[in-house]
């Protein structure tokens, strides 16, 4: 039996806030279900978020969660890998699985007329993956190849090195897809055990967005997921990254014309109460595209880079803060100094009234753009639920941004930015760049 606490979430509608009213219920086997009716187009997105990601990998077996996810659609007890692909392709739909640090998502997208097939295939890969030995070997060697291929991307090489410096002895240290070393240690039994422990209906948020009614969706959930057995969820520990108390520099030699530079340190979690103040501060610093300080000084005034952005990745545990750019070998030091100068400046003096007003106006005004397609809506709804933000998020977001003051921005800049203690990674022609750090 599915469910049965059914309640609509109704919200007030202040300016800029989005009109998002999902229906939420919990099934008897513990699955959280969110339904948002959208009848403009005859399409349906069915999106499952499983609360397990690479943060649950044993360090010596990094890449396990990703390997499990990659094998879900490579054969079930009722369908072969090829049959799954043929069935979803035949209706022009898509079936996609992706592991992240904190969670894994599996989603089906179909036309309304094929909604039953979408549910059937998604339910099949989530509840009955077979993990055939030959697919395990094939997919693992495929991922190993992708890891090698990723080394052709200097940005990827730099980020991988950066995470290892910032997250020592922390679950966010290794790439989601693992390393050459750790993938080789994963056995088929590891995959089966991880699946058995982590893939439980009570660890799943199932979000359905599109041309479907709550009644239809409820019945489909019951039919396809009703018999999934509830289990005991694994305990989770929240671990903070170790504070960096010096400059750590890693220079990686490559035959390239540009230096790829990453500077950063641990940042904040998604549920940190300062999240919104940090969002405003980061927008002014380097997340605000062509209106940010970093873009203005590094690109527009000095012509040192094509793109430069600052990021705070708010995860379940504090994620990284980083600034990344590429500049020609000769200007490596100039660019690094420019970035550090901006990190210092935003900690030393309050942002201007104009900067604050512009940043807040953008963040509030652009909120609906983040929800303008079915796929985006499903993702955002699932994450709002995962992080426990509450569905008043959609009405409250503009207020939370509006409340941020200049003093807040200065305070969080001092608290969450450190231009003295950080990790710096440079990938490029190191001999010629003569990095002075």
């Amino acid at each position, binding site marked *: 039996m599915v469910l049965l606490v059914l309640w609509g979430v109704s919200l007030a509608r202040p300016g800029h806030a989005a009109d998002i009213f999902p229906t939420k219920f919990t099934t008897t086997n513990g699955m959280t279900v969110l339904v948002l009716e959208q009848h403009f187009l005859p*399409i349906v997105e069915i999106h499952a978020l499983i609360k397990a990601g690479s943060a649950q990998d044993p360090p010596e077996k990094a890449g396990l969660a990703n390997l499990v996810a990659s094998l879900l659609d490579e054969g079930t007890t009722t369908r072969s890998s090829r049959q799954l692909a043929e069935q979803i392709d035949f209706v022009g739909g898509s079936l996609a699985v992706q592991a992240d640090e904190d969670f894994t998502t599996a989603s089906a997208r179909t036309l309304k007329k094929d909604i039953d097939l979408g549910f059937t295939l998604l339910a099949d890969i989530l509840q009955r993956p077979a993990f055939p030995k030959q697919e395990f070997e094939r997919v693992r060697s495929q991922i190993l190849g992708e890891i090698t*291929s990723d080394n052709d991307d200097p940005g990827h090489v730099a980020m991988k090195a950066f995470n290892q410096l910032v997250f020592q002895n922390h679950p966010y240290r290794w790439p989601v897809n693992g390393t050459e070393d750790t993938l080789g240690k994963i056995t088929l039994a590891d995959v089966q055990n991880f699946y058995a422990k982590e893939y439980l209906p009570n660890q799943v948020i199932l979000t359905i967005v599109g041309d479907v009614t709550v009644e239809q969706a409820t019945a489909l959930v019951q039919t396809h997921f009703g018999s999934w057995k509830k289990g005991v969820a694994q305990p989770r520990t929240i671990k903070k990254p170790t504070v960096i108390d010096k400059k750590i520099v890693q220079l990686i030699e490559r035959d390239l014309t540009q230096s790829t530079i990453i500077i950063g340190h641990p940042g904040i979690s998604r549920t940190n109460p300062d999240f919104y103040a940090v969002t405003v501060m980061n927008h002014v610093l380097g997340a605000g595209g062509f209106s940010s300080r970093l873009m203005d000084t590094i690109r527009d005034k000095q012509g040192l880079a094509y793109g430069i952005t600052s990021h705070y990745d708010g995860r379940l545990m504090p994620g990284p803060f980083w600034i990344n750019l590429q500049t020609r070998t000769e200007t490596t030091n100039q660019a690094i100094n420019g970035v550090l100068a901006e990190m210092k400046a935003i900690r030393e003096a309050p942002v201007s009234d104009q900067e604050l007003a512009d940043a807040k106006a953008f963040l509030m005004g652009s909120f609906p753009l983040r929800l303008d397609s079915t796929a985006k809506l499903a993702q955002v709804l699932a994450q709002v639920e995962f992080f426990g933000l509450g569905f008043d998020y959609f009405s409250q977001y503009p207020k939370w941004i509006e409340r941020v003051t200049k003093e807040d921005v200065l305070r969080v800049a001092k608290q969450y930015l450190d231009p003295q203690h950080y990790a710096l990674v440079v990938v490029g022609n190191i001999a010629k760049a003569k990095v002075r750090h």
Partner: protein
Amino acid sequence: MINSTFVIIMRTIHFPALLTALLIFGPISISLGAEPNEYTLSNGMKVLLVEVPKAPVATVQVWYKVGSRNEVMGRAGLSHMLEHMMFKGTARYPKGSFSRIIRKNGGIDNAFTGQDFTAYFENLAADRVGLALELEADRMQGLILDHNEFQTERDVVKEERRLRSEDDPQGALVEALFAHAFLSHPYHWPVIGWFADLEAMSLEDLQRHYDTFYSPNNATLVVVGDIKAETLLPTIKRLFEPIPRGPSPKQTLSPEPEQRGERRFFLKREAQVPFVMMGFRVPNYSSDDSYALDILESILSHGKSSRLYQSLVYDQKNALAVGAEYSVLQSDPGLFYFYSVVNPGAKVEGVEEAIQREIVRLQNEPPSELELQRAKNQVEAARVFEQDSNFRHAMLMGQAESVGAGWRRIDQFVERIRAVTAKDVQRVAKQYLSQDNRTIGILIPLPPPSPDLVPTAVHEGKS
């Protein structure tokens, strides 16, 4: 089908690395549902308005019929350089104010340049559309080209070139493929341009390009979103109709002569994995064969059940990724190309042969009815999914107009796709995917000068 991954470049990066983008983005199929309201202003500007009331947002796009195909030898990259300069201000809205105004109104603005077009866009709340229109109307004629701004922006574009081509092995191979497949036609050179041409460019070149191509009669305005066409049209007329009609630039180019024999080249550079590309010169939208070519592309490369994936990735395991792309919406006949990232340890020759085997198979026997139906279903479903994003929806129409196909052809496309037979697919495979018509490029990775796996030093920085 917009097939933009390799040839469209943006003012700033929106997509992840080249190949990732290609795999995720995938081939975009032509589709269109809500009928656009079409108008032509008194100065010749085409306007397409689509009412999509599902969310309180809209996209505004201005498409100019100018891209790298409108450049001359020695000035490759001029259109893209001008695109960057279009953000440097006018008398009314000085440097920096364009993006600032859009941003503080909750919008996002950017631009992109391709072989056939340059487009500017603003995604924003539907009630701010008028603002975007005013800014776009202003810079259609009022751009101020400043020498110092140009010097700095040229450095930015050079960084962009380093990022996309110089330091990206696959990007470098794509560039070389087009240079080999097209000898006299401007598809020969990359949209971003060559270093020497960027260096040789002058402010006068930019001014001439702007004066020639940036006029209402060479532009298409597309707005898709929560708008009302009849209330928006008067605003559009008020803002754009005062702009005088400009010159009628020559848009017809001499066709690239027929290819007589295979062309093959190698690119040797530091890299991790080999990359293979195989391009065939094919017709564009104006040919009836374009529908069968589109189905052919789908059968070969859409989804994990496609022939190329099943053969190279699944069965033979010699490729990490493989695909085929056909860009039907181009001003001039372009390329139908195959690409494959070779699995480390597998042989490049094996991958090339495996692709060739799939081509020959389709030349020797028509696809099954099931495969044909799947391909058609994929095209039809994509037609609906396409409309989930106002941006993509508008982009498709803007591109169709800019390359001369016209948005109506998009609607007809699905009907024509339904009529394609298995024999048609076999016929176009034979006619166009021939050995004499192909250009093959192979990236051969060179080992780094010093052993790559020596751990790089981690040290404490100087205080």
